[in-house]
């Protein structure tokens, strides 16, 4: 182990609040209790610091399961259908990426597929893979690597942007065609809310607090 001489500061043994470093300016500070209102800020650069208050692991698991069900719905049912001159056409979430692929834009299709299907899926599955064992005070095999995957994939999950993009597309189409929203449009909207709630209660700090607690 190369880290034989190193220690993590602020382990349970010390009584002083743990020393943390601001990720935005490297200032060392004691983690104070969460302020009554608003978020904790760095004393020097005013970047928001992670809250010290705790979320329940049960809530995170419930939200992740909920998001998984909604993601399945969003991909199985049609997103929107368009009716014009007796012709009808509908698309699913994956269909949006496939449409680009069909026109020869492979990389663009991959980008859309990655940000609307793969990234949310990986985000949900990695969280469940790590959280379910932790809930039972166990650790998942390869936990650290899986958490690293989560940290790199999460910023590319663009569900909320996709919803707004879908709105723009529907406004443009509504002029010359009849549009009927499908089940997946509603489940995508709920999925968007579910994922943002999930992301906000499973910060990196929070995940590792759960990991450390299970080790005691």
């Amino acid at each position, binding site marked *: 182990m190369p*880290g034989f001489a190193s220690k993590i*500061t602020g382990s349970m043994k010390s009584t002083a609040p743990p020393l943390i470093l601001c990720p935005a300016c490297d200032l060392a500070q004691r983690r104070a209790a969460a302020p009554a209102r608003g978020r904790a800020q760095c004393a020097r650069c005013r970047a928001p610091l992670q809250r010290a208050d705790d979320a329940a692991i049960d809530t995170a698991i419930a939200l992740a399961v909920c998001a998984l069900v909604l993601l399945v719905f969003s991909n199985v049912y049609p997103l929107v259908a368009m009716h014009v001159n007796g012709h009808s056409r509908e698309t699913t979430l994956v269909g*949006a990426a496939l449409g680009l692929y069909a026109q020869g834009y492979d990389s663009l299709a991959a980008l859309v597929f990655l940000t609307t299907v793969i990234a949310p899926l990986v985000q949900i599955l990695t969280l469940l893979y790590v959280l379910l064992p932790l809930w039972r005070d166990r650790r998942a095999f390869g936990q650290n690597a899986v958490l690293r995957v989560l940290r790199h994939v999460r910023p590319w999950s663009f569900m909320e942007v996709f919803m707004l*993009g879908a709105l723009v597309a529907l406004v443009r*189409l509504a002029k010359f065609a009849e549009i009927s929203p499908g089940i997946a449009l509603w489940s995508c909207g709920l999925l968007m809310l579910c994922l943002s709630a999930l992301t906000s209660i499973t910060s990196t700090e929070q995940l590792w607090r759960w990991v450390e607690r299970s080790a005691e």
Partner: protein
Amino acid sequence: MSAPATGRSLGLLLCLDCRATVRGVTAARSRCPRCQAHLHERKPHSLVLTTVLVVSAAVLYVPANVLPVMNTRTFFEDEQDTIMSGVLVLLHSGSWPIAMLVFIASIVVPLLKILALGVLLVSAWRRSARHRLQRGALFRMVEFIGRWSMLDIYAISLLATLVQVQSFASVIVGWGAWAFAAVVVLTLLAARTFDERLLWDTPPHD
């Protein structure tokens, strides 16, 4: 004022993977004792990588705005839309809130991001100590708004998929959309490779 106590001055490192504060690590190539990630005092090659990404984004910004992002073929006409003309189409069809939304997400945000990252890079290369609070806030804004530029790409992909009614109308994606998506991805990557802490590593006189 004495120099503030930073991780660097105290010999502490922040693990970017698990946010642990690690003490007593000096050698490069050491790993975090909690999550075994590689530790770095600052993100490696941050300024060079970010500069390359921002310059590439700035170059691609031109074709992204000049080339058509989609061609709409109908019985009567063959219409080419750039990003800006797409905004105008929305404006003329009476949906000005949506037109404003697309204008901000597709034209203002990418330009603002490239300019803001440019300002941050120049000040970091020059190790400037002025207006650090404002520059920190500017970087957080770039991080926050970045993803919203993808909006037009999703709208175009849905239009291209839905509008394929034989002989009546079809929407064909143009290379402008490719260039535009590349600009968005490059600026998102640039915001991730940039290490904000470089803005604060300068001597602390403001």
